[in-house]
């Protein structure tokens, strides 16, 4: 891969109808590093992740993920990224195993990996229960399995531990945490914890990048003022 950044945005713009959700956002992230995105609700964090996940087209500026230009080469990027957002993207009436099998088929992954992952997050015994019968923390663990099922190079995490108790949050760590060794883009509301894992910081407010590169805790808190 060389020294090319895993993610490179230059002047990125994305609008929803009248509203500008992302306005001239630029950032670069080396492979294997973690980018933490701060910002109050509605600042454009989720939009940023959805653009990187190829779910939304950029409308201005350029976006490169893993060296491929979006949206032109989006199809090359899909399959090398994993998105974990507020929505687990799991069908509530199907079991964890059935859900993961669906994604394994889509991505062409062998089913053995499903068992290994479920074992790793301690859900092997509950793998055949419908998702709707699992607790919030368990659902999020299954969603994390879904996110890393196809060994993505880039993880896009939208407040992965929101509403989780510390134990549940720790269970996600080996899959999607810093120790997973993958390039990560994480959104966060928690300045202290967020800065602790950040290699690069991006602070959004009203769709604009107020902080870029590195920041102090005080500067991050200022964003929410």
């Amino acid at each position: 891969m060389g020294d090319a950044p895993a993610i490179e945005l230059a002047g990125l713009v994305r609008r929803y109808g009248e509203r500008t959700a992302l306005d001239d956002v630029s950032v670069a992230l080396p492979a294997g590093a973690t980018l933490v995105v701060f910002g109050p609700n509605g600042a454009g964090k989720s939009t940023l992740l959805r653009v990187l996940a190829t779910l939304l087209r950029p409308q201005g500026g350029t976006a490169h993920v893993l060296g491929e230009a979006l949206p032109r080469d989006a199809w090359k990027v899909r399959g090398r990224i994993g998105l974990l957002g507020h929505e687990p993207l799991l069908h509530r009436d199907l079991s964890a195993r059935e859900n993961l099998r669906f994604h394994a088929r889509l991505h062409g992954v062998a089913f053995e990996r499903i068992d290994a992952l479920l074992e790793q997050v301690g859900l092997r015994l509950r793998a055949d229960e419908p998702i709707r019968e699992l607790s919030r923390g368990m659902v999020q663990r299954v969603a994390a399995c879904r996110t890393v099922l196809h060994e993505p190079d880039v993880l896009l995490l939208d407040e992965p531990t929101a509403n989780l108790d510390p134990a549940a949050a720790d269970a996600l760590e080996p899959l999607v945490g810093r120790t997973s060794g993958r390039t990560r883009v994480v959104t966060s509301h928690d300045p202290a914890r967020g800065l602790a894992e950040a290699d690069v910081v991006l602070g959004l407010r009203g769709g604009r990048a107020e902080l870029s590169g590195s920041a102090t805790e005080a500067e991050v808190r200022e964003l929410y003022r």
Partner: protein
Amino acid sequence: MTRAVNAVLRRDLRIETRTPQVVPGMALFAVSAFVVFHFALQQRSVEGNLAAGVLWVTLLLAAVLGIARQFVADREEGGFEGFLLAPVDRTALLVAKAASLFLFLVALEIVAVPAFLVMLLGPSPVEFWRLLLALLLADLGIAFVGTLVGALAVQSRARDLLVPLLALPLLIPLLIGAVKLSAPVFGGPAAAARWPWVLALYDLVFGLVAYAVFDFLLED
């Protein structure tokens, strides 16, 4: 492509077998409609064109119920995004969804057609293959048009209103062909040989249209 079609189709069928909603709903609706027709028409039995009409109107309205439910799970439980994140051809979703709708319609007809024969039809059916041909060709057309309409309506606020408003006019040519083709089975006038071709043309045209435009319904 086959891999993705297989994945989506299996998932849809699994959801339907796990918590059956669409097929039992459509079948129950069809049987209720036959009862309603009995009282509304004030007839013990129907035959000929009337019989074909009653059967096809019922099947069409039941199909509209199925069409309206088609993408609801995908939208509400992130199935769209889960699919879009995968490195697969997006046409696979159209094919898989049309295939699952087709299978649901076949399941509906396995219940509704015998129920119709028992409950309402007067004369015993002749040349039954005509009905089977009509069902096959019509189901194919409904599957394509229904998938397109379902995907079109699912993103709108007025989904339940739009599906019948869009689907019924679009399906009228298909209804004409199906009624003409199957009327002789119930003792109606003989059908011209062209009707299977008209239905096949309908299937072809809407199959191609759906293939051409479906991608645009998935982008954000």
